[in-house]
């Protein structure tokens, strides 16, 4: 029987013909990395291949590593297999990986979203035969509101808090969500302050992305200075002693999980904005359709439910594969573990 072009083994997603892994979760010799979040770009590979703009990001997280940067649509051939990276729109410099061998094309999305967010390179549909897709939000309950409306809500929230003499604290993980928030905050309302983890990562990406000015909160920052302004912090800062300096404050979280009332209440956060870096239900379905694929492999997220829908309702040859990307757990929980790792390193 013919070996599939990509297989899922105990180390990651593997292309045997090329001897290359994609987003491996155990140390391997050669690994293509879709994006900089910790569950996709892990420690210990001998050589990393990723988008050039992702190079400083993973170097910041992983230290001195052996890494090659590639441009969008730049084909690189390994043992006859053609690889190329295409924007996934998830966060800055996040890629889908296109793999082609003897006319057969597979695409692995990594994480992706279809709506342009004004910062990450916009998702590009890539024609393929087999589409390996995430489905973190693969339920019809998830429907995103256009980002312009969400940011208008966020800025109104900030302005109201300011009028009431309170500081706004906005939680979003330090790589990706934090910069997306920064980018669209209305700085005519006030100043943007940052937590150390956010500030460090933002400094790293400023090299390639244009972002508004931020001020790091240090030991010397006074309470009065911060008052009424907005603070962008990683979710792990919630409930920490660091936050006491901001009293009186109001907290908000921006995540796709904020769709659920339960998730909002569980985190004891004052306000939840539904803003995700993953595709929603319609986004996932539209992306699959645009690839023109026949086979779909659903990885992390509501995989069983999503692939059943694809099979039974839409007639795709769809199945699931287990990966070690954060499965079924919430984005916020993922964020916490990611942040913890980053903070340890810092």
């Amino acid at each position: 029987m013919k070996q599939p072009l990509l297989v899922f083994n105990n180390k990651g997603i593997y292309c045997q013909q090329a001897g290359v892994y994609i987003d491996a979760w155990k140390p391997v010799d050669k690994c293509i990395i879709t994006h900089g979040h910790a569950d996709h770009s892990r420690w210990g590979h001998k050589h990393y291949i990723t988008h050039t703009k992702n190079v400083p990001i993973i170097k910041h997280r992983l230290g001195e590593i052996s890494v090659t940067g590639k441009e969008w649509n730049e084909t690189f051939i390994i043992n006859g297999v053609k690889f190329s990276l295409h924007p996934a729109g998830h966060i800055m410099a996040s890629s889908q990986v296109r793999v082609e061998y003897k006319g057969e094309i597979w695409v692995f999305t990594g994480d992706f979203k279809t709506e342009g967010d004004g910062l990450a390179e916009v998702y590009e549909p890539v024609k393929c035969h087999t589409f390996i897709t995430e489905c973190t939000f693969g339920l019809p309950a998830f429907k995103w509101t256009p980002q312009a409306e969400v940011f208008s809500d966020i800025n109104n929230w900030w302005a109201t808090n300011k009028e009431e003499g309170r500081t706004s604290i906005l939680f979003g993980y330090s790589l990706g969500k934090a910069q997306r928030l920064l980018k669209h905050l209305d700085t005519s309302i006030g100043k943007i302050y940052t937590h150390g983890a956010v500030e460090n990562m933002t400094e790293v990406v400023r090299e390639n992305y244009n972002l508004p000015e931020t001020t790091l909160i240090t030991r010397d920052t006074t309470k009065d200075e911060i008052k009424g302004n907005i603070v962008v912090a990683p979710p792990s800062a919630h409930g920490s002693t660091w936050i006491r300096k901001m009293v009186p404050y109001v907290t908000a979280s921006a995540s796709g999980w904020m769709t659920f009332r339960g998730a909002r209440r569980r985190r004891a956060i004052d306000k939840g904005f539904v803003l995700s870096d993953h595709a929603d239900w319609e986004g996932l379905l539209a992306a699959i359709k645009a690839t023109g694929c026949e086979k779909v492999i659903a990885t992390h997220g509501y995989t069983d439910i999503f692939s059943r829908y694809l099979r039974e309702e839409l007639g795709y040859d769809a199945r699931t594969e287990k990966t070690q990307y954060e499965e079924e757990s919430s984005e916020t929980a993922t964020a916490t573990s990611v942040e913890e790792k980053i903070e340890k390193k810092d």
Partner: protein
Amino acid sequence: MKDFAQLIKKLDSTNKTNEKVAALTSYFQQANDEDKLWTIAILSHRRPKRPVNTTLLRLWATEISGIPLWLFEESYHIVGDLAETIALILPTSKKHSDKSLSKFVAEIIELRTLPEEEKKQYLHENWLALNYFERFVFNKILTGSFRIGVSQKLMTRALSKATDIDEDVLAYKLMGNWTPETTTFQKLILEHNAEDYLSKPYPFYLAYAVEDNFQEDLGPISEWSFEHKWDGIRSQVIIRNDEVFVWSRGEELVTDKYPEFQRFLSEIPNGTVIDGEILPFVDGEIGNFNALQTRIGRKNLSKALLQKTPVILNAYDLLEWNGNDIRQKPFSERRKILDQLIQDCNCSEIGLYLSETMSFKTWEAAAEERKLSREKRSEGLMLKRKDSPYLVGRKKGDWWKWKTDPFTIDAVLTYAMRGHGRRANLYTDYTFALWDDGELVTFAKAYSGLTDAEFKQVDNWIKRNTLERFGPVRSVTPRHVFEIAFEGIAESSRHKSGIATRFPRILRWRKDKPIEEANTLDDLKALIPK
């Protein structure tokens, strides 16, 4: 509806009591009387009757959304709330509706009587005329309890601020079985109307559990009166105008369930309200709570059942005497009148008994009495300050409950289900099992007792150690032992294990214990009082 939905959204998005009260107060100051009355009704669990069953709601919502029913069910398991799931999966609305809350409720009431086709059409039109949150609120009114972290106490406080009427007076006005269809805001809240009060109970005074080292904080023990905390149904029996009314603590009028108390009319004068505990009473002895439970659920009380499980009222307190509200008198004085009343009447004939008060010289002596609780079929002791008035609701200071230590047993986690509300999408509802002949036999379910962090940890473990899935339920590898506490235990033919426990909850996670060291079913059976 817009204002009401906005209010619910505000209440739902904060966990600060002050902000909730402020939002409610400002709503009560602005809304019209009909909307105010319905808001009070809804927040005190007086919803209109469900006009459409949930099976049809699901079916119609999926039809409009164009998704298969199984996908709706899967989504529902994950979202954890039916009203919320429907609101989420419906297509985004393009229209909007300016109908008021009371108009919507009136339509929902009328909807019950309409043929199915018209119900469907009504829902279709209205779902698509509301935004996401309004839809959620609309669905909540249609389907179920409105649990949004607003207690009746909190609502009453806001209403008091908005109307300048004393909180306790309002609490009293809001008691009983009124609905917005039978009264008006003016009549219920603003006017004083004697006939409305005929069947009205007083708000119950509830005690908090004692805190650690409470003995030091309570002052001289001579100031305290002790009683057993009887294990039955806390109730008020009202005798007014030659009628008897029986109210349970859940503000339910249960007169018909206890025909025994009609006999009070022959011995107790009009204008009397007694606070007490309904207890099963067989052969001159207080029976087990489980015996009472077989009566609670029945629609029709057969003669045989009444004979098998007769009940009495064990009186704690007297709230009204000679038609006067005496709640402000000291407890000792109220009890004096009550004791006299019971002494003077043919009390055992009519099934009225006295919950005996006790005084102790030392806390050690009180503790000795508390040890006898199980034997006497009580749940522990009540501590009441002798000069305390009868307050409204749960208050600290004058009354305390000092319950017996719960039964405990070490059991193995075998099944898990996703929780609801703030635990939606987390596996927090667990089933526990005990050893029986080398096999694990399910004996109890428990949902509470772990911290949020522990729940998160267990949830994570469950997702990685699932053996089988049955809809929302998963069986898991037997690996973890938990200490389970419960209040009561009795034999039961309805349970696989043959044992029913009352109020089981998780006491702690025994990470130190391998599953082999969990208890056996025989260990559990040994706890049943002889």
